[in-house]
């Protein structure tokens, strides 16, 4: 015997909130670092706890000698809509970096070193990945003072527990 089909019932999901995020920064290009910093800061602005873990080339973003010198990748970056050989010309990366930095300043988004200070003052915690710190032969003294600590992955997971993890 056939049963009559009933209209599907849609149950609206209850309104959820995010209380805590962990942002992992693995890239060292300007366009690789900014999204992570903006996400972390945006979280703090909403009263969400934010922990940021810098690993591999992401460490450049918190190095005293490099944080202010991150560059836009003009080669191997389809988003640039620039032929690879053109992107490889001397000065292209510096030019693209200047353009992006100017655009960012217009949007009230600070340069990376000031951004790190803003994040730390906002209560976001910045951490460096121990394995990559060792791989690059770095020490805590190489990092800007806003970095809380050098941590193993396990220690970071412990801190990040219970939050959303965002990999960039």
């Amino acid at each position: 015997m056939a049963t009559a089909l009933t209209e599907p019932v849609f149950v609206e999901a209850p309104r959820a909130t995010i209380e805590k995020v962990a942002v992992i920064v693995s890239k060292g290009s300007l366009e690789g670092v900014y999204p992570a910093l903006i996400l972390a800061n945006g979280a703090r602005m909403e009263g969400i706890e934010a922990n940021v873990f810098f690993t591999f080339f992401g460490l450049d973003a918190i190095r005293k000698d490099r944080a202010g010198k991150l560059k836009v990748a003009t080669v191997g970056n389809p988003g640039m809509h620039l032929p690879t050989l053109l992107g490889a010309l001397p000065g292209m990366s510096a030019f693209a970096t200047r353009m992006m930095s100017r655009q960012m300043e217009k949007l009230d988004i600070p340069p990376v070193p000031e951004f790190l200070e803003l994040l730390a003052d906002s209560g976001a915690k910045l951490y460096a990945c121990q394995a990559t710190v060792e791989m690059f032969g770095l020490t805590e003294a190489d990092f800007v003072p806003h970095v809380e600590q050098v941590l193993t992955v396990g220690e970071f997971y412990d801190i990040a527990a219970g939050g959303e993890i965002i990999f960039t």
Partner: protein
Amino acid sequence: MTTVEIAPGPVELDAEGFLVDPTQWTEELAREIAREHGIPELTDRHLQVVRFMRERFFASGASPSVRALGKESGVPIKELYELFPKGPAKLAARIAGVPKPRGCI
């Protein structure tokens, strides 16, 4: 849209609790909104931020970002987060009776 009964009369708030008409703002209203958002007492430091926000809004037509607040209100970022723990820009804008800040920073 909701209306709240506060002296000297009812004021309209939008769906997110921001004052619809910023000119209806009074300090009494600010204290009331602050209490509703977990700030029992507005201190002089709170009011310094709130007044800066209003000045900025009426001068430029937009509510200032956290970065601008930290640089120009005379209250540093760290303290802003202590004064308005659940997000300084939005909460201060609510209390200041100006629209929600649109920036990401």
